[in-house]
């Protein structure tokens, strides 16, 4: 069984972001093959490495990074949605002439084609935060 995970919900104002993480962790622990996690809409803010919640709160960015390195899962962030919201890798930061980039390690900017590709290639597509 192959899953594609689509996250739309904001990391700071939706339950969806945390639920997506926990669901993906659970799926991987049960041996499900997660083809890709695709971050779209407000969820792209999850990939901002400058996010720094207080110590007693969950750091979603770090949790996703941990998951990606433990299970070798692709974390793809929609490039258009990310740039629109100020999340950039080195290349995009240069392109838009910013002095700094902020994409967290383990995440990768790519196009919407990756969402379509994952949707078609998976047995199940599970979306978190469709209503935002």
């Amino acid at each position, binding site marked *: 069984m192959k899953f594609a995970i689509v996250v739309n919900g904001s990391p700071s104002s939706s339950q969806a972001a945390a639920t997506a993480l926990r669901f993906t962790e659970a799926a991987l622990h049960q041996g499900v093959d997660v083809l890709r996690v695709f971050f779209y809409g407000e969820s792209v803010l999850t990939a901002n490495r400058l996010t720094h919640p207080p110590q007693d709160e969950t750091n979603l960015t770090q949790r996703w990074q941990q998951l990606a390195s433990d299970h070798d899962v692709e974390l793809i962030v929609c490039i258009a*949605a990310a740039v629109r919201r100020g999340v950039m890798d080195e290349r995009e930061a240069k392109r838009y002439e910013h002095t700094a980039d902020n994409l967290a390690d383990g995440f990768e900017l790519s196009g919407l*084609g990756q969402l379509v590709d994952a*949707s*078609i290639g998976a047995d199940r597509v599970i979306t978190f935060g*469709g*209503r935002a």
Partner: protein
Amino acid sequence: MSQIADLLLVLRHGPYGGLNAREGLDAALTAAAFEVPLSLLFLNDGIYLLQSDQQPGQLPAKDLSKTVPALAMYDIERLYVRSRDLEQRGMKPEQLVVEVEVLDDEQAANLFHQHRHILSF
């Protein structure tokens, strides 16, 4: 129940209250560019995307009223709305910018079963 298409995209938000509708349409256009057979269901406030005579010029938002009629150029021709959503918002099918198929609640529910995957925005 026979399958209509691979993907059903559900647009649940109006055009100018946020980026949901815009990003949902972008996903639809991308899927079409990849030649994935897809359908679009405009649900709840999503049907405001179909309202004719939109004049969003005064808003700090991109005019989406031109995008919907352009869907046909991308071979996105299966467009659906729910009759209940039209009634609740005082809209009639003939007022919409494109021709759509109007479904009752049961038909709308079936639509979800007739697609392999669903993406919701």
